């Protein structure tokens, strides 16, 4: 017991150092956001001067909101990200299941082919993929932006890995009860792989939320353009950088996510985490 107390004492000393380090890092990490908040709420001349007497304003938000139909872009991005994620989860679950539950000729070759895609940078295939899209008549549609991403090698790889770790007994028990292959997938495999689904979802959503070049090339109109293309308004090289409006727009687009995280922080971390990626 005495040893445990000593452990706790040394623990609390180092705990203090930990707290300092954690806060230092947190302040560094939040600086871009803090700067965005400062600049977005103050007139342009204060975008590089930090004075407590600076007047507050909402004008930057008004200008940013004017500059592009952000509400529409937000909707587009949300739909796009949802569409891609939904298709990925569905299609890749089926494919991963095939790799785990069945033995078929050429399985390893097919799997290797799938894995190759992990390392292909999709931007490189821009011209070819644009040709395909225009042949299919899908240029300037949300579906066209998403289609090349509907099947994800990363998802197949992750899910296969997870499915392989699921105890045989559970599958056998379900088979005894007369469940079909798809029922087993739905009732045994999918529920047990939930944390992996969540982890993958986060990767996928954050990738497509940020994707820029492909959506720019394949879209023409406000009806199909995502947020990143809208944010590009402010990358205008000719006029120089106007930080006030950039930060206002950044906050406008990131606010919903930030608020959601603040409000549901605990639930978010816990539900995602329940079992962790194991």
């Amino acid at each position: 017991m005495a040893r445990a107390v000593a452990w706790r004492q040394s623990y609390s000393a180092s705990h203090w150092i930990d707290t300092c380090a954690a806060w230092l890092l947190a302040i560094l990490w939040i600086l871009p956001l803090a700067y965005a908040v400062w600049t977005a709420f103050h007139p342009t001349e204060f975008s590089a001067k930090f004075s407590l007497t600076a007047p507050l304003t909402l004008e930057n938000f008004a200008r940013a909101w004017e500059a592009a139909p952000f509400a529409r872009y937000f909707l587009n991005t949300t739909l796009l990200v949802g569409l891609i994620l939904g298709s990925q989860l569905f299609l890749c679950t089926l494919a991963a299941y095939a790799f785990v539950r069945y033995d078929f000729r050429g399985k390893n070759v097919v799997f290797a082919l799938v894995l190759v895609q992990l390392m292909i940078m999709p931007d490189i295939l821009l011209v070819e993929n644009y040709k395909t899209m225009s042949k299919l008549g899908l240029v300037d549609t949300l579906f066209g932006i998403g289609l090349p991403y509907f099947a994800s090698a990363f998802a197949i790889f992750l899910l296969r890995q997870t499915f392989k770790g699921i105890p045989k007994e559970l599958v056998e028990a379900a088979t005894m009860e007369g469940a079909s292959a798809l029922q087993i997938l739905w009732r045994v495999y999918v529920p047990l792989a939930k944390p992996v689904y969540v982890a993958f979802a986060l990767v996928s959503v954050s990738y497509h939320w940020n994707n820029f070049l492909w959506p720019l090339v394949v879209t023409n109109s406000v009806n199909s353009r995502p947020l990143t293309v809208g944010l590009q308004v402010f990358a205008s090289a000719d006029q120089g950088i106007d930080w006030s409006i950039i930060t206002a727009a950044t906050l406008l687009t990131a606010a919903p996510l930030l608020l959601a995280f603040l409000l549901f922080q605990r639930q978010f971390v816990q539900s995602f985490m329940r079992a962790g990626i194991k």
Partner: protein
Amino acid sequence: MKTSFHSLQSISRAFATAFTLAALPAGAQSVEVPFYFPVAVGGPITKIIDQFATDFNKENPSIKVSPIYAGSYQDTIVKALTANKAGTPPVASVLLSTDTFTLIDEDAIVSIDTFVKSPEDKAWLGGFYKAFLLNGQIGGKTWGVPFQRSTVVLYWNKEMFKEAGLDPNKAPQTWAEMTSMAQKLTKKDASGKVTQYGIQIPSSGFPYWLFQGLTTQNDVILANEAGTQTKFDDPKVIEALQYWVDLSKKHGVHPSGIVEWGTTPKDFMEKKVAMIWTTTGNLTNIRTNAKFDFGVAMLPAGKKRGSPTGGGNFFIFKKATPAQQEAAFKFAKWLTQPARAAQWGIDTGYVAVSPAAWDTPALKKYATEFPPAAVARDQLQYAVAELSTHDNQRVTKAFNDGLQAALTGSKTAEAAMRDAQKEAERLLRSYK
């Protein structure tokens, strides 16, 4: 594979035609003109362009121009050429005038001369400033209509001039004067740290454009008109580069290393620098945001005055139907009518492209009320074509790399320009 795609294509084309026909009201055969425009979606300029398109379509019910905003110039050409390679390019687009060689080499555009038939058309084409036509004229043909054009000018902070004991209404007229004034305008704090620089010339991204001001003033042209030969290692070019390098290395009146283009107007507004070189396109921005009195002047003279032109031309794509091309040509003429060009110049800060536009009452009035607006026009007589060759982006990159190497001190001006010239010669070998 090819044949199956071809049949697929013809099927989808048939569908597309069926759809367009079905969508049109009976009898109205309107010609579609998708028009790519290099401005970020939704900025103030898009409203002007949208209005142009609406007005033009109203006047010409048989034509439907639809602007598509594609972001920066680079984003726009990526989008246009990608679409072109897939067989579905826009009918018209505004792209960098320096991309003319690329567009010709890709066989993407038709020359404007194809459409110039009547004497009236000829007069129209002859009505532009010669300096603006230069980049679009290759092999005896005109490929681009000047539209969104600019030049480099010098902005100076009058208050700082006063503080330094200089005449606030007199910008430097020569290189020597620019150096000596910059010396007076450079301020240091007690520790010897510079708190205010005399001059800055941005060097990120496309340093060649601003450097071309210096070379033109030093009386040397960087490339031949055919775009097959560069003169990067000409002693005069090296001398001009040495002047730029010395501003920071020797005189300490210019920030060291690479100066970011995007932050330069802000540096000026933050009073961190007394004089800057940047595009006329920045006039409206600086006018709105600078909290002090400033002036705009022509670039100072070396052996003579000079500046490159810059900005975008209006191009018509080859794969469009003849009817679409004619419609686009009509639109180009409509856009550059004096009154409209004048209004465009006032609204955006770009230089109105024809002398006739500057003779309109609106622009005359504007130029009297706000004299800086006319500086760019007056400088046009000294302006030269922006550097442009075959394989343009690659040659320019070799040049940019050389400039940045010299400015960051990793090579001497001479070695940097020798290397750039060697690379340019290698690249251009196949075009001779």
